[in-house]
């Protein structure tokens, strides 16, 4: 309620400013154009660099220094730390990287995000970029008419750059013409009061804009136009660094434990940056002046000096926290531990990555594998077996015969608690994620949905099998007992083989193992073979046993085929090889 009134008040204030001050109108229009530009550029980059960026982040973060460097390079490339944070959280959820690497990437990303300030203070302000902005905007829009999504993405990127430069030009014009009518420098504040007021302003402006890059562009342009003193500019930059973490914190409220840990790491780092900056603000501004003179930045070029301050301080903060990172990560791991619940919850389906195709697909794949593991637990128990006793056992036949009939698994209860809700979550998440995907990616998600359905159906078949397995395992007729043991061996062998497949790297080895198993389980299709006929003819089993066996063999055959189908979809990485397996 209060939030609604704040927004109304903000709109009213904005309208008044726009109505009464032409110069502020130009500046705010510049900020708006700049923000649209950043949004367009990020979308373009996101599409163009999606696969490459994710692969790079996954492979180049195994040590802390590499993670920091990767965070820096990736954020510089896409000009946005939010996207990098989202990818990092998704990888952390999928266990593709460690929390230490994720924190390293965030540190690097903070340094990388300062490159926006360099773009603004060098290209944006030093060169008259406006004449180039118009052709960029025109070409960006024309490229957007293409039906090819990659060309559309190039268009968005070019359009974004054009709008960013146009936005800077507007801001510059606004501040320059303001010099003649209105002098902002009379609000210059020194000392503690200045620090407090300007840090707060920097923070609020960044929270409103939801982008530290855009806020820094505004501050740098104001400093360049001499409307704000260099020291107050530094204080605004400190505020921007605190303000930028609020977006991450708000986003993390709905995220899982990993998302919250990364957000807290980001917040803590930026707070440390702010504390160091506030305590050492005067010696640090002297140091930046000294550094600027050494690298050839003009003494009066406050815009570039502000960018230099932002980058240097971020580097200093990283150096400062580097020796304590391991300890800090250990502490983070003790926080936000998910509570155990009766109803199984998804481990990997994070809404934060639903719009990033590759990360979303990996999250769905991991979740389907999680669903599979849950289903295997109940399938094993419904055959009166413990998984650890037969999986990777040297003698599978004997392990299966070691029956534990005390295992009284209620498949319906298990289905309600560990499968149904998880299955529903996977289908819901997968369907929403498909909205933003290319046709190929949509097909992959469709296959993963299919795998989930196969798991659920395999479980339903087991429910039908369970009663007779229990009944005939206790039968005095050794023939029927042997036949039911056979069914269990086939299913156990399928589960065992799939567990081994998970460790294979060669897709051809995986598919040939699956296809071989498919061939061997055909023996289960008893109607087609003479085995059951012989048992009936020789009066070794009665007609009731025979019909049960015929039905249950078909159920067991179905279970094995469904599990093998799931294994093909989940654990064959190459799409062309996978298609060979799914065809049959």
């Amino acid at each position, binding site marked *: 309620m209060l939030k609604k009134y704040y927004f109304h008040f903000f709109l009213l204030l904005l309208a008044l400013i726009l109505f009464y001050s032409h110069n502020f109108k130009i500046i705010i229009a510049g900020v708006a154009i700049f923000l649209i530009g950043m949004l367009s550029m990020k979308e373009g980059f996101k599409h163009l660099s999606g696969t490459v960026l994710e692969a790079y982040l996954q492979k180049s973060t195994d040590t802390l220094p590499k993670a920091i460097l990767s965070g820096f390079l990736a954020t510089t490339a896409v000009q946005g730390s939010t996207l990098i944070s989202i990818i990092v959280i998704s990888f952390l959820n999928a266990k593709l990287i460690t929390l230490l690497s994720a924190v390293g990437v965030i540190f690097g990303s903070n340094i990388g995000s300062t490159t926006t300030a360099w773009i603004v203070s060098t290209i944006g302000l030093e060169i008259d970029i406006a004449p180039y902005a118009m052709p960029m905007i025109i070409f960006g829009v024309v490229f957007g008419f293409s039906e090819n999504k990659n*060309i559309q993405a190039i268009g968005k990127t070019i359009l974004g750059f054009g709008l960013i430069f146009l936005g800077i030009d507007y801001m510059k014009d606004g501040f320059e013409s303001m010099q003649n009518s209105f002098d902002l420098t009379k609000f210059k504040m020194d000392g503690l009061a200045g620090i407090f007021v300007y840090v707060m302003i920097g923070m609020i402006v960044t929270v409103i804009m939801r982008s530290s890059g855009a806020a820094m562009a505004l501050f740098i342009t104001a400093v360049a136009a001499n409307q704000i003193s260099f020291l107050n500019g530094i204080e605004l930059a400190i505020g921007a660094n605190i303000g930028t973490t609020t977006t991450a914190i708000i986003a993390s409220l709905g995220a899982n434990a990993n998302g919250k840990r990364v957000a807290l790491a980001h917040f803590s780092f930026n707070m440390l940056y702010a504390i160091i900056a506030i305590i050492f603000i005067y010696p640090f501004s002297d140091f930046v002046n000294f550094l600027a003179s050494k690298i050839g930045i003009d003494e009066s070029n406050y815009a570039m000096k502000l960018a230099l301050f932002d980058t240097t301080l971020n580097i200093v903060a990283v150096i400062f926290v580097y020796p304590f990172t391991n300890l800090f990560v250990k502490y983070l791991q003790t926080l936000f531990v998910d509570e155990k619940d009766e109803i199984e919850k998804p481990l990997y389906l994070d809404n934060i990555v639903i719009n990033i195709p590759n990360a979303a697909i990996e999250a769905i794949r991991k979740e389907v594998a999680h669903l599979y593991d849950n289903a295997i637990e109940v399938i094993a128990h419904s055959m009166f077996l413990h998984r650890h006793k037969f999986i990777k056992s040297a003698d599978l036949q004997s392990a299966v015969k070691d029956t534990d009939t005390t295992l009284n698994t209620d498949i319906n209860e298990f289905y309600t608690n560990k499968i149904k809700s998880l299955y529903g979550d996977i289908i819901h998440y997968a369907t929403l994620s498909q909205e933003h995907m290319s046709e190929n990616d949509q097909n992959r998600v469709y296959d993963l949905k299919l795998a989930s359905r196969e798991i659920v159906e395999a479980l339903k078949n087991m429910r039908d099998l369970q009663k007779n397995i229990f009944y005939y395992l206790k039968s005095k007729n050794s023939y029927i007992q042997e036949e039911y043991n056979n069914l269990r061996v086939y299913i156990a062998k399928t589960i065992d083989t799939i567990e081994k497949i998970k460790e294979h790297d060669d897709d051809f080895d995986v598919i*040939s193992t699956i*296809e071989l198993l498919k061939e061997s389980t055909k023996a289960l299709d008893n109607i087609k073979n003479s085995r059951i006929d012989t048992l009936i003819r020789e009066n070794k089993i009665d007609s009731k046993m025979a019909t049960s066996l015929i039905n249950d063999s078909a159920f067991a055959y179905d279970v094995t085929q469904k599990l093998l189908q799931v294994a093909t979809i989940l654990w064959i990485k190459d799409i062309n090889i996978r298609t*060979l397996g799914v065809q049959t």
Partner: protein
Amino acid sequence: MKISKVFKGIEKLFFSEATDEKKQEKLREKLLEKIEQTKEEIKNAGNDEEAQDLKAKLYILKKLLERV
């Protein structure tokens, strides 16, 4: 020059993906390579059981080749 031709040119230059035919050809090559490798492994198999397993694998790989 039509704008669609410009788009197609850019698409071809930067984003041309391997056609289905090329992908199938590549897959066939990889499979043939794997078949040859398995044949070698059969020759060097340490015992009969291992050789039988490899022969079964070879049979499946040949069946997969037919599907390509």
